[in-house]
């Protein structure tokens, strides 16, 4: 007697055999206890498997999860505070940019003359902070403008700091030429946050593209790779600046982001399904896209008065 193969018996259970084969196997099972036992065992396994139910997770899973969610909410609250701080950036930063060259001309002639042309040359880019101007800028033009604005802000801040020191030494009244309400450290922080907000928006575009990409073969990610490469240098600058200014949450986020950007930038232009999954896992496992979205959107959100 020829026994059906295990595959045939499995096909019999799955009802995937032709009618003729099905009848043939059924007839065989009536007379073969061994094959009937195989079928019976497999049918039992299928029944048992389909009857498997939910399993209560250990209590500590919820505790850890709740803790993680609280952490993410605290991050959101912190970023909302950042949003409030950035409320007057567009106005204040332009105010500083507009006003800081004037006292330099009055108080510190040689240095001011050295600084003034640089400030003026960057001034039009600083004006592009206004929302309506955003769409007029090409993709990288906006990045350059924000980076330039940050540089300008730090140059301005550094210059004013030096000027204040010199003014104090000379007991000069020039300090009063600055608006009393403008705290240079605050302004620099705000300018940084505006720039970081825009940087996060561009980074988010790269991360979203990669996180949602699908392939069963090879996928060309050269555009995302190039963009990541462009973002790495500015990310490093913003991170270091944030660290220097004590913006720890922003610095931490940028540190996490930098690792992902570097990985993409230094990776291949074409990735396999597995390599893509690795990148996506990296993005997912750190929750980096979520953090970028939350903090980025909060920074960019119009402040509530």
């Amino acid at each position, binding site marked *: 007697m020829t026994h059906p193969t295990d595959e045939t018996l499995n096909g019999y259970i799955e009802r995937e055999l032709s009618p003729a084969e099905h009848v043939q196997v059924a007839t065989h099972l009536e007379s073969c206890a061994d094959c009937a036992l195989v079928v019976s065992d*497999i049918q039992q396994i299928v029944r048992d498997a389909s009857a498997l139910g939910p399993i209560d997770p250990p209590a500590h899973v919820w505790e850890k999860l709740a803790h993680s969610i609280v952490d993410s909410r605290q991050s959101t609250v912190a970023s909302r505070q950042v949003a409030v701080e950035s409320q007057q950036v567009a106005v204040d930063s332009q105010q500083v940019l507009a006003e800081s060259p004037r006292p330099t001309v009055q108080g510190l002639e040689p240095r001011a003359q050295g600084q003034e042309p640089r400030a003026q040359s960057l001034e039009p880019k600083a004006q592009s902070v206004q929302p309506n101007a955003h769409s007029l800028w090409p993709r990288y033009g906006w990045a350059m403008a924000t980076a330039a604005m940050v540089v300008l802000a730090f140059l301005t801040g550094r210059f004013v700091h030096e000027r204040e020191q010199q003014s104090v030494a000379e007991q000069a009244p020039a300090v009063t030429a600055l608006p009393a309400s403008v705290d240079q450290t605050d302004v620099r922080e705000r300018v940084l946050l505006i720039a970081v907000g825009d940087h996060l928006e561009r980074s988010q575009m790269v991360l979203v593209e990669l996180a949602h990409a699908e392939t069963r073969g090879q996928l060309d990610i050269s555009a995302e790779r190039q963009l990541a490469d462009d973002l790495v240098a500015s990310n490093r600058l913003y991170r270091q600046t944030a660290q220097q200014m004590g913006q720890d949450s922003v610095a931490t986020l940028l540190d996490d982001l930098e690792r992902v950007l570097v990985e993409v930038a230094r990776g291949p232009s074409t990735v396999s399904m597995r390599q893509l999954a690795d990148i996506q896992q990296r993005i997912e496992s750190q929750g980096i896209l979520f953090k970028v979205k939350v903090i980025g959107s909060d920074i960019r959100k119009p402040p509530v008065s």
Partner: protein
Amino acid sequence: MSRVSRPDAELVARCRAGDSDAFEALYREHSPRLYALARRMTGSSPESEDLLQEIFLQVHRKLDSFRGDAALGTWLYRLAIRQCLDFLRSRQGRMRAASHPLEDDGSYMPSTRETPGARIDIERAIALLPPGCRTAFVMHDVEGLEHKQIAEMLGVSESTSKSQVFKARMKLRAMLR
């Protein structure tokens, strides 16, 4: 048309509003099914706990994108199974799989039935399956997905899915006899 029941819609709305009690209620209601899925797919309790936590972090992050086109449970299940597959595809998952006690050589045979009761036996036996056929078996025989769906999710052919399920059944039979 929304397929979300009113209690689910209210629960989602409260979660979106930042109501932590609502999110805990959502977790309590759905985590047993998703934890079971994660545990059977990974074959590991510690990994499935991490995976469950990651699944619900994703739920927390993505709840705003829930449009109600499917029932909440279905949406959660899809998200969870995608997360499980991502985990299994990940480098970490592959490394752990490489050191799995049972590979595809068919050599493993449990010395004794560890605990009485067929269901507990089959749970333990599923955990001991090689990762490849375990995934297909869990998706087909436990979760009830069609081979076509499994093939699409795993990026393999339907015949490969059928072959893996068959292989898993035969290994389970050897372990449970």
